[in-house]
């Protein structure tokens, strides 16, 4: 499975997952992390832990809220990982719906393109 991690400020990630599940039902393989109160080391540790999950064999997409933020910086600082990792900023509902609806169907690279495309189309 291609894993999804939503890494955001405050309760944004928990809130957007809650909204998503209200529409699509309970979702597996979608982890929510927040930077609230965590040092960089601790944030990296929790992100590494989530990325390292056995079921995410085919790669992981890390959704962050804002480029340049500490969440984004932490995701960017992950190096030398043996898994495929992509970072997508500006997380919104349309991109997460596309992610969940297509992750079993598309390759990692195609999925990233599609997710970004719908995310951008969701802004009108």
């Amino acid at each position, binding site marked *: 499975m291609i894993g999804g991690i939503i890494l955001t400020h405050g309760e944004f990630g928990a809130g957007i997952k809650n909204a998503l599940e209200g529409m699509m039902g309970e979702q597996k393989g979608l982890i929510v992390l927040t930077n609230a*109160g965590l040092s960089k080391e601790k944030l990296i540790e929790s992100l590494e832990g989530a990325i390292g999950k056995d079921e995410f064999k085919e790669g992981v997409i890390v959704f962050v809220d804002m480029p340049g933020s500490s969440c984004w910086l932490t995701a960017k*600082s992950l190096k030398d990982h043996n898994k495929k990792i992509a970072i997508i900023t500006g997380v919104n509902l349309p991109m997460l719906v596309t992610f969940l609806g297509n992750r079993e169907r598309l390759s990692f690279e195609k999925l990233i393109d599609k997710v970004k495309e719908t995310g951008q189309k969701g802004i009108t």
Partner: protein
Amino acid sequence: MPIILFRLDERLIHGQVFLGWANFLQAEKLVILNDQVASTPSEKELYLAHVPSPIKAVVFSLKEGLKKIFQGEFENERTIILFETPQDLLSLAQQGLKIAEVNLGGMHFKEGRKQFLPYVYLTEEEMEVFEKLFKLGIKVFCQDVPTAEKKDLELFLHKLS
């Protein structure tokens, strides 16, 4: 000298700084003083990549930064100076940098640290460094974002201990 804020924040440049403080204080420039970031091009690039224009951002080593402050390099722009650790701040204060007040914006949870505020966790060693800063006459105020309550760290630490 229009250095409008000295800020201690482990996250250096991030949302609270370029959205919160820079807007509130109408800062024109953000300056990171940090040896590790200054000597690692990839890290430097990450911190500077998304600072919204027209705010300018730069990174210097502690030594270089101190020299530039003494030379009056930041006198023409409203500047926020950012430090990662109280140790770095102490080192520059001991080398003659005049600081009246420091904004403590974030030292977060990790092992060995005790919580004082949701965004302030300190080890014993770090508390000792702050005591040295207080002895030099430097006031440290905890305030993560401009709208938050400003708390005097000295009173806070002494009241709690």
